[in-house]
């Protein structure tokens, strides 16, 4: 078991699911490929997860479940996603329950908790409509007030699990006047509806996640009782935007799982395939490609894990942080997958060869992650609108502000520290410009200087980390100045140049998150992490698109990273800053099918 207890559930789930390379395991690559080919919903696999009681970890402790931290949640979603994103996404539509945990009455929470934990219930999110894209207020679904409740009318599409979910979170207009208060959110329980007043739309044939229940739902004068409404009339958009702050961050977990398998199956090939009398891994160019991809995975880890913990400490800042994670991590891990498939060669394209053809499936499945729950453009736009406040906040920091940031960064990034319970009521529609991760970078810079007297820190590595952190700070200053002196527009006609600036902000943010992660966990995580060579490479890669840099990265650093990558592959550990032990084939053979209780105790 991992010494960090928030990773123990992920390790237990790993072990019980078994090695995905072994055809007899639950959710093995062989099995998920069959599901994909048949496009049939993964009924048995989802049922297995319910029997394992994974659903309990989607319900907060104060609502009767076992959810205690987003860090733990992200870790076990990665474990599912590395096998199959289709199943991971299907099971995880359940995390829309956070809308109720955030905004529901005690009765609504109790009802949903019971539905999830005792009735294998699931839910879906019915926001989008065929004609309206990301424009939620432009929607056509209406909820007209009648005695005792509302009459729902209209169609929601495309919706993952629309047909199979028992509870549907429906966003509908309760006010004919278009405006920010025209929407209300309903937790619609299908069991309470007259079946003749709603209908499901046919399964949509998709490029990836082909075994999903991707469909839609329509309502015709469908009566829903008043108690299905979450909070007051008119609060729908507010709840929707706050809910997205939670789910956008969690989407990163799907991408991490896919990237892990992309790297693993590519290494399965690269270390065995001999060409020109060498393995592919021993040829410099593919070796460097894999090292670079691995470095990007580690940087994404710092951004995702930091954010997962940050939710518990600074939820009010997530109008910024969730947008950074949803843009940066999902897009960067798409790039990782695209870069390693060149090493895998034409096998990446085959539907049966090489690890049952899992690569082409994950490539297809994964390409929806950066699109759903807010596309990259939506997230960059959300950042652009906040840049003036972000830059102003930074210029106004005082000693007291910095002390607050320092104390919060310490709790956010120290993985051995426990986090307080999540308080969704503290989520805010805008964070008033606060962004501790980048605005606390001067603190990190001072901490790095102080490390010069520590005997266990390699002086060369530290010097390079300091140099690169200094450049991140310079680029951040330049960013602020650019924002201060640029024109500013509201609305959706933003200059495309601003989108490039938003991408730069995300790179700087990920660089800062990596520095903080290293500082606070240097003595907690493994030797590879502590030594910090990966961080030098990570910072270098974040800055290179924006700045002409001196070549200060020794070849030895890359070589050491290559050796560590090989070691994780050989030991069958996750490609992560927290390299949990993955399921072994031997274990699977010894213990093929433990009962649900035994699995949980293990």
């Amino acid at each position, binding site marked *: 078991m991992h010494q960090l207890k928030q990773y123990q559930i992920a390790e237990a789930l790993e072990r019980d699911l078994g090695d995905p390379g072994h055809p007899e395991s639950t959710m093995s690559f062989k099995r998920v490929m069959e599901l994909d080919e048949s496009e049939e919903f993964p009924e048995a696999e989802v049922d297995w997860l319910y029997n394992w009681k994974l659903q309990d970890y989607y319900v907060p402790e104060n609502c009767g479940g076992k959810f205690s931290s987003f860090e733990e949640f992200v870790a076990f979603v990665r474990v599912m996603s590395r096998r199959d994103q289709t199943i991971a996404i299907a099971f995880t539509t359940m995390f829309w329950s956070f809308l109720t945990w955030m905004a529901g009455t005690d009765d609504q929470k109790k009802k949903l908790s019971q539905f999830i934990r005792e009735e294998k219930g699931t839910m879906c999110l019915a926001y989008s409509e065929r004609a309206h894209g990301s424009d939620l207020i432009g929607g056509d679904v209406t909820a007209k007030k009648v005695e005792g409740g509302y009459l729902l009318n209209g169609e929601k599409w495309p919706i993952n699990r629309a047909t199979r979910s028992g509870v549907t979170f429906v966003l509908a207009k309760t006010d004919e006047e278009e405006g*920010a208060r025209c929407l209300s959110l309903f937790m619609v329980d299908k069991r309470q509806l007259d079946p003749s007043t709603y209908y499901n739309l046919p399964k949509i044939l998709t490029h990836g996640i082909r075994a999903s229940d991707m469909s839609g739902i329509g309502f015709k004068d469908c009566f829903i009782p008043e108690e299905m409404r979450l909070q007051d009339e008119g609060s729908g958009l507010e709840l929707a935007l706050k809910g997205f702050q939670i789910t956008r961050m969690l989407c990163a977990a799907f991408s991490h799982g896919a990237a892990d398998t992309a790297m693993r199956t590519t290494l399965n090939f690269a270390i065995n395939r001999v060409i020109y009398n060498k393995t592919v891994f021993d040829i410099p160019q593919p070796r460097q490609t894999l090292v670079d991809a691995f470095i990007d995975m580690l940087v994404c880890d710092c951004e995702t894990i930091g954010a997962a913990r940050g939710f518990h400490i600074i939820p009010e800042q997530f109008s910024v942080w969730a947008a950074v994670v949803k843009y940066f991590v999902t897009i960067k891990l798409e790039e990782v997958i695209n870069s390693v498939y060149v090493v895998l060669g034409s096998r990446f394209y085959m539907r049966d060869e090489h690890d049952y053809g899992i690569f082409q499936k994950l490539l297809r499945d994964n390409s929806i992650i950066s699109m759903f729950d807010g596309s990259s453009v939506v997230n960059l736009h959300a950042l652009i609108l906040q840049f003036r406040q972000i830059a102003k906040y930074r210029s106004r920091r005082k000693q007291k502000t910095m002390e607050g940031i320092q104390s919060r960064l310490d709790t956010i990034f120290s993985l051995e520290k426990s986090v307080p319970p999540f308080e969704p009521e503290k989520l805010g*529609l805008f964070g*008033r410009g606060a962004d501790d991760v980048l605005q606390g970078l001067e603190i990190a810079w001072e901490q790095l200087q102080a490390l010069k007297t520590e005997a266990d820190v390699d002086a060369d590595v530290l010097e390079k980390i300091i140099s690169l952190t200094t450049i991140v700070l310079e680029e951040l200053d330049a960013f602020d100045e650019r924002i201060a002196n640029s024109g500013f527009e*509201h*609305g959706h006609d933003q200059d495309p140049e601003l989108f490039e600036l938003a991408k730069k902000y995300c790179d700087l943010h990920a660089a800062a998150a990596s520095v903080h992660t290293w500082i606070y966990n240097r003595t907690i995580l493994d030797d590879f992490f502590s030594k910090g060579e990966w961080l030098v490479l990570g910072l270098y890669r974040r800055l290179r698109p924006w700045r002409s840099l001196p070549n200060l990265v020794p070849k030895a650093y890359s070589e050491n990273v290559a050796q560590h990558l090989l070691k994780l592959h050989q030991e069958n550990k996750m490609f992560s800053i927290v390299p949990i032990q993955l399921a072994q084939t031997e274990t699977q053979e010894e213990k093929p099918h433990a009962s649900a209780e035994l699995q949980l105790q293990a």
Partner: protein
Amino acid sequence: MVQSDVDTPNQSVDSVQAIQNWMVNQLVEQLSLDAKNIDVTEPLTRYGLDSIDAVTIVGELEDWLEVELPSTLFWDYPTIEKSAQYLVEEFDVSAALDNAESAAPSETKAAKPEASEKSGKGWGGFWKGLGG
């Protein structure tokens, strides 16, 4: 203009007017509109501000008035007139208004950087040209 140093019976009326003027100027500046075409009784969305813009513009108002406001201010009070009245009734904005030069509705864009430098505390001229 606000008679900031004299406590007159009309002070709250003047405060409402000052806030309205400031907001009209924000719209003039950021949406490239003509002040003459802005009606304080019309919903802000009519001028091209969408629901998310209405959240982010609260930050500008907070900076100017030096108070913490609900981020849904313009969702619940969607016109310039209604939000200005709400602010004067619910928040102590007099100190900030005393310090800040409110811009008259007829003020031209050229006169704005000066006003913004006065109200933009802590920016040391860094933020000039942005109006607020």
